[in-house]
């Protein structure tokens, strides 16, 4: 590697890749074989955190930021006047190995602008993954971006060497994709997703019969949607996410608050704050759907298409459904306890375990690390704790917001200004 040039390329190509948020390295087991390098464990390790608080677990770079397309929301778009660079295959391999050996990263996330054509680009991404696996005996994590329009044969190769593949839909609806990415086509995004879905399912079947069956994208596929660049409601966004989870068997859908990078008047102006709170609410809602047994329509509906920004979606649901409360944690079943604001998934399980030994009282809940000051509005105990019962949902919300005011007030006011 020629030092200075590589340093410069890394600056350019890491900078351009940072808006893609899929960074997790979880969910892939790839054991170290023949005393090679690396061992993907099945849970992600965040090796560092950026000053904006996001986790760094992978070397996330573009192979190149040259691109023949002109998607308005993208810094690498053809019409944007930025410095261009491209790594060689060997440079990416050396960087990955050098970083991995020093325990900086869990692996590689490799994406790319499209140069020449989809297959030409995809072929290089595949070559890097192949080299890492076969020549370096590398068993760390590899996430490749599947380039829309690439051939099935190349996608298949990618699945053999990578742990995860992703095709980003970028825009929550077909209309906004058309508006902002005129060269792209909704079909070209959906088609590789479908292909991957089938291949991954096929691999799982085969694995059942033969545990030595070669791996195929064992960590599944994921996708990303940019939030706040266009006008979609949370109902549309979560509806789309639900479609990906149900129909495409996605492992994760990522929501990326749009960071204004363009003077294009189809997009929010430069200087518009990034919708960080909204993004956070979407992740919370996504989490409720995947792990708490909530249905999308319980969280957003036609009468209320957007998530509240000032309270989390679980509290929002509870306030709209006060008739389900108070819940007696000494008798209620796990599913219902999970739905109590202030009680998380793990705490709910602990409650169910602990109540076998004795009846639980408020002080016991505090010991279990539950946000009691929040949960108390939704709890029933046998003894004198019934007094909260007659509050209206507005009163409860006010009291809870007051509690957290000191903590978050500033964030809220900033953020709210944006949506007024």
């Amino acid at each position: 590697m020629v030092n200075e040039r590589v340093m410069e390329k890394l600056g350019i190509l890491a900078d351009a890749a940072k808006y893609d948020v899929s960074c997790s390295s979880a969910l892939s087991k790839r054991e170290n074989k023949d005393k090679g390098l690396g061992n993907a464990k099945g849970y992600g390790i965040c090796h560092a955190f950026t000053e904006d608080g996001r986790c760094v677990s992978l070397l996330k770079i573009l192979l190149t930021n040259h691109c023949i397309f002109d998607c308005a929301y993208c810094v690498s778009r053809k019409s944007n006047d930025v410095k261009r660079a491209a790594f060689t295959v060997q440079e990416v391999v050396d960087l990955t190995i050098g970083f991995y050996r020093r325990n900086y990263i869990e692996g590689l996330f490799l994406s790319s602008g499209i140069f020449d054509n989809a297959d030409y680009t995809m072929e290089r991404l595949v070559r890097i993954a192949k080299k890492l696996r076969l020549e370096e005996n590398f068993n760390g994590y590899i996430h490749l971006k599947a380039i829309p329009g690439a051939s099935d044969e190349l996608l298949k190769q990618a699945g053999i060497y990578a742990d995860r593949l992703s095709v980003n839909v970028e825009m929550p609806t077909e209309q906004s994709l058309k508006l902002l990415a005129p060269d792209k086509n909704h079909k070209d995004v959906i088609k590789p997703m479908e292909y991957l879905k089938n291949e991954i399912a096929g691999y799982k079947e085969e694995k059942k019969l033969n545990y030595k069956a070669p791996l195929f994208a064992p960590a599944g596929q994921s996708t990303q949607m940019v939030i706040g660049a266009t006008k979609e409601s949370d109902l549309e966004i979560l509806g789309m996410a639900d479609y990906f989870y149900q129909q495409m068997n996605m492992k994760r859908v990522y929501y990326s608050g749009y960071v204004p990078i363009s003077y294009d008047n189809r997009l929010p102006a430069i200087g518009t704050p990034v919708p960080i709170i909204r993004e956070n609410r979407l992740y919370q809602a996504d989490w409720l759907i995947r792990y708490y047994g909530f249905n999308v329509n319980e969280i957003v509906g036609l009468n209320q298409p957007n998530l509240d920004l000032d309270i989390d979606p679980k509290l929002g649901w509870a306030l709209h459904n006060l008739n389900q409360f108070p819940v007696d944690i000494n008798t209620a079943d796990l599913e219902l306890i999970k739905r109590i604001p202030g009680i998380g998934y793990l705490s709910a399980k602990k409650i169910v375990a602990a109540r076998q030994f004795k009846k639980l009282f408020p002080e016991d809940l505090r010991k279990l690390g539950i946000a009691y000051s929040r949960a108390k509005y939704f709890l029933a105990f046998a003894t004198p704790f019934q007094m909260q019962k007659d509050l209206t949902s507005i009163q409860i919300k006010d009291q809870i917001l007051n509690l957290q005011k000191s903590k978050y007030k500033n964030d809220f006011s900033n953020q709210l200004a944006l949506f007024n």
Partner: protein
Amino acid sequence: MTQVIYDGTYEGWLTAVFEIYEFKFQDIVFAKKEASAVLLFAENHFVVTDVSKANRVLKGLKQRLSSEGFEGIYKAFLSDVNQIEEIMFRFTKYVLSSSINVEEDFGNSDVWELRRATRLTRKEAHRMEAFVRFKLTKDQLYYAIIEPDCDVLPLIESHFKKRYADQRWLIYDVKRKYGIYYDLENVSTIELQFNTKSNSANHLTEICDEKEEFFQNLWRCYFSSVNIESRKNMKLHIQHMPKRYWKHMIEKIPETK
């Protein structure tokens, strides 16, 4: 009150537990051998570590706990939190006196105090798996210095052994003055004098591989390139990556020269 003095090892502590039962000591405090407070107490009991006694206590615990609960006691021991030995002892007494598994009796304060210490160690071990930063020396050894609150080396050994099976490495805990070293076959515990001024420019050129500085700078460059200024949130940053770890993390140490 009896002061029970043991050698500071887990086996030593287990032996002590055995002898507390054996001699029916009532009111006890634990002390490690070198403790200066030794003479302040009227009654001292010196424990000589005895593997067979230790094993009998372990056996009793194993019968009454899940494997997670069983390992939890050892992890609590490694936490080095204040008075952990007493917490562990009260927990052990409760476990041994019950006919059923009580590890999830979270209404009991000994159970959750022990649990808290266990969690502390587990969390820090996980963090160390993440925050260890290796540097490559001229003779191709990858070494890292850490300074954790809990004694995590025993817990992270197998992780690094599996991950870096084809490189020699050393992780050294400056606080406890010992390290673990992998020689391409086995991991062993070693004690040595370590130069702690390892971030200086001289050190890099004298000790380190010629590519080392380049990779450190690449990593710093990467770390600053992925930051999104308009999303800056230092509070969150510090919460995830506490300041006490920074002095051994390349990306948080300004470039030398």
